[in-house]
């Protein structure tokens, strides 16, 4: 299992569009990917669950990946969030 903490910096936080970009990018990975925010766990492959977390700009989240391709999934997740989740 790999885990990283990161601050969400894009303007809107994880609203519809950013959350959908993120979850769609996570879906192809076979490992389990979760986001921990305010002591709750959310499935990172689900746009609905990500939005339900109501993660806003400036929030610190923890990403955990567990499975065969966990390293790649983590790298992708971090680069997406650092890149501001824009298309």
């Amino acid at each position, binding site marked *: 299992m790999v885990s990283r903490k990161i*601050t969400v910096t894009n303007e809107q936080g994880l609203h*519809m*569009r950013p959350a*959908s970009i993120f979850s*769609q990018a996570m879906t192809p990975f076979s490992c389990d990917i979760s986001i921990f925010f305010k002591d709750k766990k959310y499935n990172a492959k*689900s*746009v609905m669950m990500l*939005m339900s977390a109501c993660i806003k700009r400036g929030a610190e989240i923890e990403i955990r990946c567990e499975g065969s391709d966990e390293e790649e999934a983590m790298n992708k997740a971090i680069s997406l969030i650092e890149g501001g989740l824009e298309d």
Partner: protein
Amino acid sequence: MVNGIPASRGIGIGSICVIEEHELKYEAIKIEDTEKEQKRFHEAIEQFKKETEEMAEDIRKRIGPKEAEILESHLVMISDPTMADEMSNMIATGQCSESAVEAVCDMFIGMFSKMDDEFMQQRAADVSDIKLSLLKILLGVQDVDIRKLPPGTILVAKDLTPSMTSQIHKENVAGILTEMGGKTSHSAILARALEIPAVLSVPNITSLVKDKDTAIVDGTEGIVYINPEGDTLSSYILKREEYIRKQSELKNFHGKETKTADGAAVELFCNIGTPKDARKAIECDGEGVGLFRSEFLFMDNKRMPTEEEQFSAYKEAAEIMGGKPIIIRTLDIGGDKDIPYLNMKKEENPFLGYRAIRYCLGNKEGYRAQLRAMLRASAFGKIKILIPLVTCVEEMRSVKELLSEIKADLDAEGIAYDKHIELGCMIETPSASLIADLLAKEADFFSIGTNDLTQYTMTVDRGNADVAYLYSTFHPSVLRSIKRIIACGKEAGIPVGMCGEAAADPLLIPLLISFGLDEFSVNPVLVLNTRCVISKWTKEEADALAEKVLSLSTETEITALLKANAKE
């Protein structure tokens, strides 16, 4: 008369058609043949996706990609593992498709609607739309065909689903009234895109009216009249004509040069706060950016933005402007703008204290990063640098010294920048105004900041209700100051712009034309209106009015004269 949220400007008058909600009744039966039910469910999902894709495509073509995003997001949502899969799991346990759809959707509706965030509450409306559409497909219910409504229809509904909105055409729908939705709901976005007047969140509107009632929809004010009196009706018919005339007049100014009635060209720029706003400036037909406030990079941040972060923001804005001028103001903090991590001292008189250029010159390392980021970004567009709150010549000289040091570094490192980058001085203090002739020798251009200039000249805190009455740009002192600043710029041969709110004020515009202002920088939404007002004045008329104005002694007399001579 009833009130609601003004969601799309304009006035619509017409005959009401109430869109009835279908009762979506079904019996929650226990399913024996779950495989057959799964097939029925998946067919419904496929049909939903197909219909939604078609509607999204229609809206994309007819209105625009941004407006189609709502429907596209419905596709993303229904494809989410927690949606269709969850419904399918429930069906596997013997529930019918309808109750599975309802249970899963209601769970999300409940969750999103509890959130304290308008955008998230909007997601509740989205899930609710998905639920309705799926239930209609499962139950074989047909919607009213809105495309077949006669011209001049005022559409009334509890809420507009995307399937309804996608059928709305400007030719037959004159106005929209709903019981739900706010300014950012998809009905509002579509109504604005289609330029159909709309008032949303009107309490009980579906039961207040019946088909064929006459209604007035004032989407600018958020007012609705049902079966209005003759007087109201005729005054609104005039208002509507006036509105339509004004709108089409303004549209004619899109893509036109900004010039006075006698053909003298001036520049019309926009004030923006983020790189994304630059797109708005372009959409609104701004000819450049006269003020890009750099504070957004520093506010809402937990630490100083790095040179890299600043560089990419300035570069982004410069690239969006595509070679059109973009004037970036260096950090203007202090006064009423505090940034916690800078640990600025609490001051007794923050507006007279350690703010803007004073702070920056006292914290040269941070300032150097900002100037360096601007210089590097200048290789990607026509960037100009603007210094806020200048009060003496030394401040301009210190900035120039810093800039030449940074330029030498960049040269040594082989990093590209615009070698002819212009440096401007904001004139927004009485001191700068009085020495405008001296400052003109140090700057490549001037930009008058009317908000601070008025506040400091009148010595008034406009946030203080007891003295706010003194806050007006039309006091003889402020007008004389503006006239003098422009004259000093002309004398020295440098252009003078104005980036305060006053630059878009139709009453002030003739005076600015007379004084010889070169560049007007306004809120993007005011570009066309400002261009229209400028086009109505000749220099001669403006001069005659300015002469009269400058002979008056009070603000009251001046505004009265300007109002009497206003050209709308």
